[in-house]
């Protein structure tokens, strides 16, 4: 049987991807950020999953103009890196695990999630920057990836509670997949940031750190943070943290926090990152 063995959460700032691609990781601005990922790069060597279910949001690359799904599950065989305006990131193609994706899709619909199936799309920095941070500069990603995109932009966006339930349902779906697979769930995005208006550059270290404190062992409290509260406290794009909730719920009750990292800033954003192992 398949099982969810652990999870990773991380911010997915495009500028981090650019620094990675341009070999700037040793520059004074970027070095302390990339050092925050030294742990996970070692950890993943002993904990390479067969499949990552990667929860992220699309940034007007594939899913925000004509069709805006609340929850979109990748159903294509592979996903190319999107050209977000400065060329495609030179990273490997993301390859899907179609059998698990089909199983998860079916179980989620049985569990009354109204997911959208994506037969063709490019994946943007929300998906590829975390892969680079964890796996480094590789020829091929060492595992399959099922991308699951969440609408965090066009109103209305899903609640924290709904995201939590989705994570639980993903956990149940993986558990009932008959093949023996080691699955991780990653949540990307956040932490506090605002990319618009006279309030641009907002960072709320207190909010972010409280979120990190509660996420491991008291995540229930985080479910009830509304979009309004994210907007007020963590900026217009701070709501990306709901992707972390999906990851956390997919891991079940007990987790061990293997690593935590927080730093301000990367470009406009506070960078947060955790590594959890499931206990159950």
């Amino acid at each position, binding site marked *: 049987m398949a099982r969810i063995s652990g999870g990773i959460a991380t911010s997915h700032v495009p500028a981090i991807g650019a620094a990675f691609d341009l070999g700037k990781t040793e520059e004074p601005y970027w070095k302390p950020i990339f050092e925050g990922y030294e742990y996970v790069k070692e950890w993943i060597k002993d904990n390479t999953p067969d499949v990552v279910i990667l929860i992220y949001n699309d940034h007007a690359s594939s899913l925000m103009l004509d069709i805006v799904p609340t929850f979109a599950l990748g159903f294509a065989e592979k996903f190319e890196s999107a*050209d*977000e305006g400065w060329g495609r990131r030179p990273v490997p193609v993301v390859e899907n695990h179609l059998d698990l994706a089909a199983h998860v899709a079916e179980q989620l619909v049985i569990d009354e999630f109204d997911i959208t199936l994506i037969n063709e799309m490019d994946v943007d920095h929300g998906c590829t920057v975390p892969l680079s941070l964890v796996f480094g500069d590789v020829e091929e990603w060492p595992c399959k990836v099922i991308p699951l995109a969440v609408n965090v*932009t066009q109103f209305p966006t899903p609640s924290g509670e709904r995201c939590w339930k989705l994570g639980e349902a993903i956990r149940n779906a993986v558990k009932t997949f008959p093949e023996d697979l080691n699955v991780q769930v990653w949540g990307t995005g956040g932490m506090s940031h605002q990319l*618009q208006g006279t309030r641009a550059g907002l960072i709320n270290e207190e909010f972010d750190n409280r979120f990190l404190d509660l996420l491991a062992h008291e995540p229930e409290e985080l479910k009830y943070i509304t979009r309004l509260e994210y907007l007020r406290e963590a900026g217009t794009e701070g709501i990306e943290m709901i992707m972390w909730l999906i990851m956390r719920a997919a891991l079940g009750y007990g987790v061990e926090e293997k690593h935590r990292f927080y730093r*301000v*800033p990367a470009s406009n954003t506070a960078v947060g990152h955790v590594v959890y192992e499931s206990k159950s």
Partner: protein
Amino acid sequence: MPRTRLYSLDELDDIPGTKVFRARESRQAYHLHKFCMSLMKEENRKAFKEDERGYLDQYAMTEEQKEAVLERNLTKLIDLGGNMYFLVKIASTDGWSAQKAVSSMSGMSAEEYAQMMLAGGRSPEGLRSIRDKN
């Protein structure tokens, strides 16, 4: 039983210097955003840079939106319905960093903004609610 709203939608307008991307904005900026997404191809970026006005005229954007694009006035584009995830593609086409693009709306110079970020970013104190002034 239906769930009840956790907050009134009017509260989305109560946050200083902030515009939430709703159905109205999504309609208002549809063609502007179509233009932005066209910049996800190198040949389109080239065509845009060679003749900005001519390129924009292919899209059913309002004149105001076109002028704001020509001026790179992101504040105005947000006001005209734009969302930054689309608009940042204009900045990328220009070779601007996301930080420079975002700073252009902040009421500070790019340098001041960069310094503020290095010093820990903008504090939310006083910027949570227009009404409550907190």
